[in-house]
């Protein structure tokens, strides 16, 4: 039985196809201005096994032909993410919170705390005994701790997002950085550059500041082993290491493919629904 999960995020879109709950294929692309086109495109990416964003595949995929698959073949499709409401061919839409919680358990059984740093929203989730969402918190009315904030700074430093992590690890000193305002953060980064500060050190300061903010969010709902980081940010080694410094010896577990956790969760929910229907008739 084939099920599909589509995660239309504010920055990137992901699509996962499961066969009876086993990963068949997935794809990721950047979210374009037109959401309808994007949702089509990300399905193509999945069946073509393209991951536009973070380069090479991380997940081993079964060696079978999938490029013939169409949405028509799916028993059920669940959408999530910012644009979840407008995916034309989705049967159901579920919020990122539930999907990340579900997906994280597929990757990391026994997970108890989840941090997801999205473009617009940063989420801290505590997983209950039966794998349900026990509690969650999202960034307050300030965007300081979001992925977008990081992008804005990376942008003025002319460093591709995928490289800010490795680069920041070469820092020798961590410069103070404020996350209270995106526009100001941008200005501050330019200022430091102009004063001859090294990008490494600016980024290290940025990661330090953001780590503080996003961790506060997880601690609010309860930080415990196993602690999982999902979303593209999981690929930012700079931020992850800053976070690891601050979790009091706790180990951070990264899913093999942090990008697709939400989409995968959605696909699992799709499987539930499909099976219910199957049982019904």
């Amino acid at each position, binding site marked *: 039985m084939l099920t599909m999960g589509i995660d239309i995020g504010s920055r990137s879109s992901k699509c996962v196809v499961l066969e009876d709950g086993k990963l068949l294929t997935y794809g990721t692309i950047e979210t374009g201005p037109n959401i309808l086109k994007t949702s089509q495109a990300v399905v193509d990416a999945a069946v073509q096994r393209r991951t536009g964003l973070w380069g090479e595949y991380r997940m081993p995929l079964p060696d079978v032909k999938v490029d013939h698959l169409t949405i028509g073949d799916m028993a059920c499709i669940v959408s999530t993410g910012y644009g979840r409401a407008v995916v034309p061919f989705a049967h159901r839409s579920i919020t990122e919170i539930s999907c990340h919680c579900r997906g994280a358990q597929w990757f990391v059984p026994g997970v108890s705390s989840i941090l997801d740093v999205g473009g617009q929203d940063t989420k801290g989730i505590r997983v209950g005994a039966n794998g349900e969402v026990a509690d969650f918190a999202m960034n*307050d009315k*300030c965007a300081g701790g979001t992925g977008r904030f990081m992008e804005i700074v990376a942008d003025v430093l002319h460093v591709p997002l995928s490289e800010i992590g490795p680069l920041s690890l070469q820092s020798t000193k961590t410069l*103070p*950085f*404020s996350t*209270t305002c995106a526009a*100001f953060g941008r*200005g*501050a980064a330019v*200022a*430091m550059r*102009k*004063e001859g500060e090294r990008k490494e050190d600016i980024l290290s300061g940025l990661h330090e*500041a953001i780590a*503080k*903010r996003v*961790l*506060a*969010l997880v*601690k*609010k709902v309860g930080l415990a082993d196993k602690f999982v980081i999902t979303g593209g940010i999981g690929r930012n080694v700079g931020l992850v290491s800053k976070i690891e*410094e*601050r979790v*009091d010896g706790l180990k951070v577990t990264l899913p093999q493919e942090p990008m697709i956790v939400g989409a995968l969760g959605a696909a699992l929910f799709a499987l539930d629904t499909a099976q219910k229907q199957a049982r019904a008739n």
Partner: protein
Amino acid sequence: MSNDKMLSIDEILAGLKKATEGVKKQPGLMKSIVGYLDVVSTYVERIATAKEEGKWVASHGTQQPLEILEAMDVRGVFNEFWGVVSDIVRLESVPEAMSVSASTGTPGEVCSFFRNMDGLMHAGKWPRSDFFLYATSCCDNVKAFHTLGRRYGIPSFGLERSYFPYTDHAMEHWKNEYKRLIVFLEEQTGKKLDYDRLKEVVARSYRLTELHLEIDKLVSHVPCPLSPECFSGTLVAIRLLPGTQKGIDFLTGLRDELKERIDKGVSAVKDERFRVMWTSFTPFFDPTLMGFMQQKYGAVSVCDMLSHWRGDAKWMLDPDDPLGNLAYRTVLAPGNCQYSSGVDVAANLSDKARRFKVDGAIFNNNFGCKTGAAYGPIIKDELMCEVSVPTLTLNCDVLDHTFVSRAEIESQMDSFFEMLETSKAYKERRNLQ
């Protein structure tokens, strides 16, 4: 481990000791800086050693009758000062404490003095306190004392002051609140207040006031004899050790040094180009800023709102009524000027600007301070139309140095002081052309 960045009381003590050694070697500083740091260290030491000396510790906010505490062997931990001294010793401590605070769900938009306290308590790094004391009016954050008291099982007592303290019934009530405070303290400590001892303390406290006023006069001298390192000297003595001989000795020394400097023609900076008044708090978040301003712009900090005495500060009305005196004192005393209407604060500051011959004002708009955020513009407009003193508004956080970058501050000060120099009022004040 990030927790290590947060300062414990011992680390603060050590830091202050180091600083004292440092300033002794450093040339060009005022002699009084040693006494200054001694007052601060003594204050912290008294807290550290309270228990073994059989004294009590009360963490408290503003508008407290510290003389009563002094007379009852209760040593105060002024929560705002704790943030300030942390910044002096190690700038990383406060931001760390505040991120801990955030992790408990406290929003990042309430006062940093309290978020710092919140974080340190959560991390177990706040000085061990037997009880909390707090007071209104205005600042709504004092509610944090009760909240934290509840959370950590520390008894607390709040003093209620009318918004308009000068009516008879308001004064009567305020004095009565002190009586209730004494009852609370007697219950907590199991000791009775010795009124004769209180009278002595109050008398010494009044001596401090007199010295403070003398010093104000000296500081208003042009060029200003007071250097940044000792800028908050009076405040430190009055707000930390009122009614103590230590405080008196320090202020006496400071006064004499200022006299001497004026006689010898020594001033804070050779070429005094601007006299600056801080219309909210001074830049605690960046202890080096005042010195920097002197060097770059010849802008000398001559006065601030926190160390402002209302009226003529003659609060010793009846030596035999210490409580009555204190009730009156706390509404006049430094650090309490801001707990009032913006128009009233502005009037006080306009008068101060005249007395200290101020050229420009800087208003630190502390992100977490609702009071300041709402009356900053009134103060700015009043200063302009009353004494034609322009104001630079700096958006900052009172304690968190990461909130606004030095580059940002510099670029704003560049503009401000260039503007001042070309302003008509400035030229007239300095009778240029």
